[in-house]
């Protein structure tokens, strides 16, 4: 468990203190995949680095598993860090070492382990990330996705309980992003380690995270389970992120000439696959136009979101039926 207690960070620029992160109170549970989303300069990178103290809070405290680590120094700090893996946007592999030596690097830094044990651990990790065949190659000979897999193997080498992901997929193409995110989700399930990731893409959050914090101007402006935040974004920044991920239309002004009132229906879980609309139409005789829609998954939960124009004498009855079926309805102003 990671807990920020009023942790804040300011940088000194030309003698003046510039705040990067306002006091944050936040708890990240053990074993969850926690996403932090924000634009560049929102403070997400700083927040992530407070966890392994690559950045020290200007004020406030950071607790890991109930222990205040804020003031850790020297050997204590290095021990803390060796229990926290980290992967990076630009992979940050040692270009002068092979894949196998990169993965072995944190183990060799810590000393103690004998060479046979290190070799065995490296084999195991390369197998986990699917790079056994590339053990003797140098990073420059690998694709971006393969480099990130090396990064992941290296981060996991010393059995950390926390994995920090710093824009880990931002330099990758969409297909590679998907496979790296799948690997992260798989690692989270199999090893039960806590993953904290920062990103500027809502899609990354939707695919792997359990909960999300939205950061804007150094403040946490929204926090909650991904499905809640994704389907019912409250803060304008969150809405923008969701709209980008969703290519969402459904604004009233975009549908001139369509009769009736506009509604956005959000289905979640099993409701997504039930024939609700056709039943409601049959029962109440309302008519509808489907204006936009999407059926997808948030992590493992199916969801759907439809924008409809509805009209008919028994419209209110129809809305009640839909709501009773556990589907959220918001009216969209036109």
């Amino acid at each position, binding site marked *: 468990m990671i807990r920020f207690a009023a942790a804040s960070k300011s940088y000194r620029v030309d003698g003046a203190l510039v705040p990067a992160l306002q006091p944050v109170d936040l708890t990240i549970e053990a074993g969850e995949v926690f996403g932090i989303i924000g634009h560049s300069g929102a403070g997400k990178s700083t927040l992530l680095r407070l966890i*392994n103290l*690559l950045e020290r809070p200007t004020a406030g405290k950071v607790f890991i598993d109930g222990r205040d680590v804020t003031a850790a120094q020297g050997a204590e*700090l*290095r*021990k*803390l*860090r*060796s229990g*926290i893996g*980290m992967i*990076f946007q*630009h992979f*940050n*592999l*040692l*270009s*002068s*070492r092979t894949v196998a030596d990169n993965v072995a*690097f*944190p183990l*060799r*830094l*810590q000393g103690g382990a004998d060479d046979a044990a290190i070799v065995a651990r490296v084999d195991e990790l390369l197998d986990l990330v699917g790079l056994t065949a590339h053990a003797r190659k*140098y*990073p*420059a000979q690998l694709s971006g996705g393969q480099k990130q897999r090396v990064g992941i193997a*290296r981060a996991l080498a*010393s059995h950390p309980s926390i994995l*920090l992901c710093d824009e880990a997929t931002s330099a990758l193409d969409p297909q590679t992003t998907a496979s790296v995110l799948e690997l992260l989700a798989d690692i989270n399930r199999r090893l039960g380690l806590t993953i904290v990731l920062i990103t500027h893409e809502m899609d990354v959050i939707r695919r792997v995270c359990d909960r999300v914090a939205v950061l804007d101007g150094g403040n946490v402006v929204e926090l909650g389970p991904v499905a809640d935040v994704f389907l019912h974004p409250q803060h304008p920044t969150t809405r923008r992120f969701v709209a980008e991920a969703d290519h969402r239309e459904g604004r009233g002004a975009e549908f001139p000439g369509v009769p009736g009132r506009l509604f956005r229906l959000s289905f979640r879980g099993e409701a997504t696959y039930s024939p609700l609309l056709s039943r409601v139409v049959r029962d109440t005789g309302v008519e509808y136009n489907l204006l936009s829609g999407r059926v997808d998954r948030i992590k493992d939960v199916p969801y759907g979101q439809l924008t409809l124009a509805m009209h008919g004498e028994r419209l209110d009855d129809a809305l009640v039926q839909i709501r009773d079926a556990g589907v959220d309805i918001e009216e969209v102003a036109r």
Partner: protein
Amino acid sequence: MSPMQALFPNIDWPEIGQACIDTLLMLGGSLLFTIVLGLPLGVWLFLTAKGQLHARPKLYAVLSLVVNVLRSIPFIILMILLIPVTQAITGVSIGIRGAIVPLVIGAAPFFARLVETALREVDRGVIEASQAMGATTAQIVTRVLLPEARAGLVASTTVTAVALVGYTAMGGIVGAGGLGALAYQYGYNGYKPDYMLVTVALLVVLVQVLQSLGDRLVSRYSRR
């Protein structure tokens, strides 16, 4: 008369051979000590610079000033200024051993600056990743910075070795021996153009060999 004697009437070949050996000894000795002193100094400069692992801006400013001062004194002046120091360290002020002290003091700051520049080329992200893995500063220097900068460090060594060839030739003027001394004494003062030609040609060959050796190592160590 053999063709060699016809072409180079004045040359005493065994003397040229001895001068080659002297030059190589001065070069080897001074390069060794230049690296021994300059490498740690370069690492120190790098670490204490603003925004680096052990940023100490005031210390950096002092180190930087000392390096700059030593680099700005013309080598020939430095050699004369250092005569008392040389005598204190080696017991002699001339000859091969006597030349090595000013050669090192002239070249080490130069090499240190090149080392600093080479280390700055190392990706900051890699250093951050090492810190995140719990590396100590000593581990970051020996296992990350120096290996990652290997190609740049070899290139810096090559440049320094070539500069040292030039310095050794100047050392010849104040009695350090070597090819430079022959070029000056016989070629220039004694007006024997064949001496000038042969000694300069040998220096050119030496520089070429050093440079291509360095280039070959650089391309072998480049893994980007």
